[in-house]
């Protein structure tokens, strides 16, 4: 059964600097939460607090209502922490997976069965007798995760498990991780700086920036309604534009209408737009005038950089001919693929605008 995890008024300082500040965070039993944020946001610090490796400078971390404290080995053994570096020991793969079970005094026959099952689940059963030092990076990551899963932990902590893998290996690895986790009720906290990876494995995603959770929501809610421009940037919006909301709610960028409308208030705002939501139209149409700067082919699309009053990126399907560099166009934004956000200038007034589609 997965653990219920609660953080209350947690503050953590390192090197005289506050690196984590979480007032409230509750994870339900069996929930999968991804922590998404740039490097240095405090993601690994959060995992170390959850693993009871470090204690918070202030506040409490509770696992099923029990407060973590130094030396609480029994509590720590309900958690498995798969670090970013596989950290395999200089012995065989099977011994690597069995060793944490030995520490928990699991009898040998059960250890063997659990280790074999975990290795099989991650597709590395054939490596069981291999020395850990002879594994490739991808194999080592799979063994690292198998070692954590073999413990049947109440809380599984994954620190960027696919960070060192190339695109192809990452895809296969994540598919296997998804499958391995699907059969379980373990509570999972997964740290990543890649939105696609976080969205794929999580029920909810916490965006962590400079030690604070800026937004905690389902992947869909995060993609549709980021709370501010920083969150929009972290979740992958390619275009963040300064905008102005008129009295009627029409949203303009550089004084030009965008086709977006906002339900509340007028004044400065930000527009976050996915590159796939940037529509290229012939000159004379309604929208933001722009000039094509650069065109390059991407996976199934043309990736276009535009010079407008501010730089813009657009993705258009590979089907048609691409625009030429230097060509003049008019840009409109698809309301389904853009969000109007509070301007950083107006954030202190806690304004939050909702897009009207």
């Amino acid at each position, binding site marked *: 059964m997965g653990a219920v995890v609660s953080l209350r008024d947690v503050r953590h300082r390192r090197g005289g600097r506050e690196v984590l500040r979480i007032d409230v965070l509750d994870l339900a039993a069996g929930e999968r939460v991804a922590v998404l944020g740039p490097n240095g946001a405090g993601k690994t610090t959060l995992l170390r607090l959850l*693993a009871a490796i470090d204690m918070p400078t202030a506040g409490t971390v509770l696992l099923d209502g029990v407060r973590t404290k130094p030396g609480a080995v029994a509590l720590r053994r309900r958690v498995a922490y798969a670090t970013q*570096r596989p950290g395999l020991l200089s012995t065989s793969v099977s011994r690597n997976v069995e060793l944490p079970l030995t520490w928990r005094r699991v009898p040998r026959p059960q250890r063997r069965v659990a280790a074999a099952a975990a290795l099989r689940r991650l597709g590395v059963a054939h490596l069981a007798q291999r020395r850990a030092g002879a594994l490739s990076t991808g194999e080592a990551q799979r063994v690292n995760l198998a070692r954590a899963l073999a413990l049947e932990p109440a809380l599984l*902590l994954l620190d960027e498990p696919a960070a060192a893998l190339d695109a192809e290996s990452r895809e296969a690895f994540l598919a296997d991780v998804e499958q391995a986790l699907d059969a379980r009720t373990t509570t999972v906290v997964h740290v990543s700086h890649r939105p696609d990876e976080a969205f794929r494995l999580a029920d909810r995603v916490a965006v962590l920036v400079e030690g604070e959770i800026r937004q905690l929501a389902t992947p869909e809610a995060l993609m549709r309604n980021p709370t501010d421009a920083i969150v929009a940037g972290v979740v992958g919006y390619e275009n963040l534009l300064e905008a102005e909301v008129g009295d009627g709610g029409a949203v303009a960028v550089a004084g030009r209408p965008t086709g977006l409308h906002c339900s509340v208030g007028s004044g400065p705002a930000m527009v976050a737009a996915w590159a796939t939501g940037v529509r290229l139209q012939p000159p004379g149409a309604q929208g933001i005038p722009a000039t094509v700067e650069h065109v390059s082919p991407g996976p199934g699309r043309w990736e276009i950089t535009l010079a407008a009053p501010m730089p813009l990126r657009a993705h258009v399907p590979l089907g048609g001919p691409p625009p030429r560099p230097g060509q003049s166009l008019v840009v409109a934004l698809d309301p389904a693929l853009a969000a109007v956000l509070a301007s950083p200038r107006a954030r202190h007034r806690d304004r939050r605008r909702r897009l009207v589609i």
Partner: protein
Amino acid sequence: MDPVGEVLARSAAVSISATLIAVAIGIPVGTALALARLPGRRSVAAVVNTGMAVPTVVVGVLVALLLWRSGPLGGLELIYTLRGMVIAQVLIATPLIAGITMAALQALPPDLPDELRGLGANRRQTVVRLWLEARVPLLAAAMAGFGHAVSEVGAATVVGGNIHGQTQVMTTAIVEGVGRGDFTAAIAYAAVLLALAFAINALLTSVQQRGSSWARS
């Protein structure tokens, strides 16, 4: 001079005992210096590193002053005894073993202790596993400690007194032979001492390289 076999047995007993005691002290001290966040850790590390370079005759003089009949530990009656020589050799070998242990554990991936704790290891399990990960340099530390102890002559002479039938060991016998111009005996003792050092180091090297090939492959 005493018969070679007798002197060899005495040398081996003193140096092996001293090495075992130095390992028992030096490895935990080196481990604490590598892993624990204690106040004054750097100062202690500096003392240990200095201890690696102290001439053995200086150690011998310090131990002799302590064990001298009028010295603070004179009541123990250890001066000019094999036990006194073991104490001196422990003091010679321990800094070397502690220093190499500290360097060996610090050379492991810095996240490894936390990774082991993240998998549920308690403090003892973490330390034992780190020793196993560093087994090759730790065996090198034991070999270096034994080599230092068995080959030193200064402390053995000052603390043991090279008393025939009681405290004469291989190195002091060699020095005595050279001093008397009996080079044949000195060379014979030297050859036997070399054979002893080789036999023990060959045994430890075999264990070490077995560990090394396991870690590499």
